[in-house]
């Protein structure tokens, strides 16, 4: 995201006069519920599994989003990112006996999630990563650990209240994202931008009529600008967030599913939700049913 920072500064320099600084999303969120880190975790995994290797090495690299409030977000002052995806990552790391501060949180953007997994640049991807058949041909995806759907983020005074209203309107999202295609199919003019934050700015300054992507992401932005933005329309797609892992280590699937299932059963999944996405005021949903791990 070097470019984003570069962009922010260039725009700031060029239109500095008379511009109030963009609302910096310095996060005041707590670091989420505490996760019990299991000690001597390495013993609980069989020799030769990737989990054992990671537990013994004492560190894990997890690819996350850093520009999605509520899901994965890192403000300038944050040591580690915060969000629901991060909480899931902490749970998985804890089951390997790895403390959150020993996890390397690496930023992944939508484009590099598969390459990062394949090259071993990251061990896991937990980055609002929808499970799709095409992706499952390339990488492993365990889960889903959360289900959301595509919605619209609009200015509070907007009249849009059904997805049919978007015909002919300018709707932005991230270039190349599935959301952008789906809104195009609804008859809107798709406007691709580099990041969700760029897109939110376009909504705030009225250049586009709405922004669209998974409701979970939009809720985070609405919570940041409660007076200016709101999330509308019934979800018109189903996005099932999964944890990405490399196909080289198929044994990771069952471990990921079991760890998340345990967190769902003992209430820590719900606590993680309330501390992150739940802050925008939505009720904590029932955890979704997991897919079977294909061998």
């Amino acid at each position, binding site marked *: 995201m070097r*470019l984003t920072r570069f*962009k922010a500064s*260039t*725009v700031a320099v*060029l*239109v500095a006069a*008379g*511009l109030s600084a963009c609302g910096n999303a310095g996060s005041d969120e707590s670091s989420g519920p505490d996760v019990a880190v299991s000690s001597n975790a390495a013993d609980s995994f069989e020799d030769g599994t990737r989990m054992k290797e990671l537990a013994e090495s004492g560190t894990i690299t997890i690819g996350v989003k850093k520009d999605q409030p509520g899901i994965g977000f890192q403000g300038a002052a944050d040591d580690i990112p915060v969000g629901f995806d991060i909480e899931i990552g902490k749970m998985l790391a804890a089951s390997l006996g790895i403390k959150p501060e020993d996890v390397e949180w690496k930023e992944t953007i*939508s*484009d590099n999630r*598969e*390459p990062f997994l*394949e090259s071993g640049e990251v061990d896991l991807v937990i980055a609002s990563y929808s499970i*799709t058949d*095409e*992706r499952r*041909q*390339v*990488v492993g995806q365990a889960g889903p650990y959360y289900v959301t759907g595509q919605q619209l983020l609009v200015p509070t005074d907007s009249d849009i209240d059904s997805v049919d209203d978007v015909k002919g309107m*300018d709707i*932005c999202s991230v*270039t*190349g*994202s*599935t959301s*952008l*295609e789906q809104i195009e199919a609804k008859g809107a*003019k*798709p*406007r*691709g*931008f*580099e990041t969700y934050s*760029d897109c939110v*700015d*376009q909504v705030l*300054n*009225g*250049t*586009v009529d709405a922004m669209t992507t998974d409701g979970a992401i939009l809720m985070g932005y609405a919570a940041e600008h409660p007076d200016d933005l709101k999330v509308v329309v019934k979800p018109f797609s189903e996005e099932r967030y999964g944890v990405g892992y490399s196909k080289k280590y198929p044994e990771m699937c069952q471990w990921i599913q079991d760890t998340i299932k345990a967190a769902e059963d003992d209430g820590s999944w719900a606590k993680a939700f309330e501390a992150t996405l739940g802050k925008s005021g939505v009720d904590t949903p029932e955890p979704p049913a997991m897919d079977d791990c294909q061998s």
Partner: protein
Amino acid sequence: MNLVFEHFDLYLRAFGWTVLLFLASAVASLVIGTILSAMRVGPVLILRWVAAVYVAVVRNTPLVLWFLLIAQGLPMVDITFRDVEKLHIDSYYFRACLALTLYTSTFVGEAIRSGINSVGLGQAEAARAIGLTFLGTMRNVVLPQAFRASVPPLASVMIALLKNTSVAYVFGVYEATTRMKYFSNITARDEGVFILFALGYVVLVELVSLAAGTLERRWKVARA
């Protein structure tokens, strides 16, 4: 890769936007570039200065910065150019063309200035001697010869412009690179998609080179 062939209309429409971005920006920057070059060689000191400063500032900054300023910076101060939609022009397309023109016209200006410098001083002196004004000298004597000499550097500028249109992909224009991202997102990982879109650009650039080559040959005969 098969996905691209199944949705070939999307592929063609995306390159259609690329061509539209290119054509409008090419025409506009040729016009503005010519004016800039005339200002730089002209007799009015203040115009020489203005043109020199404009070229120095704009040519020395990255294109993406001008896109950022026009597509994301100006809307923050309520300059969105949405009025052009009354003329049935897409405002995102308009902003992208504006950024591309702003940037490319400086290169065009310098390419034409190099052509002007190649026209012998005697030509301008003779034109003045028969009573032509500065504008008359430029229009009837200097620029026609300068354009001829500028064709090869102008072709390079135009080729760069054609490829620079891809910067618009994160600024709301659904051109070829945006569509490539769309296909590569769906296919998760497919080098074929990349190759097909790269080929599209190669074909378009080749068309520009061919056009430039034809002009060069035709005008060379006229000079001989």
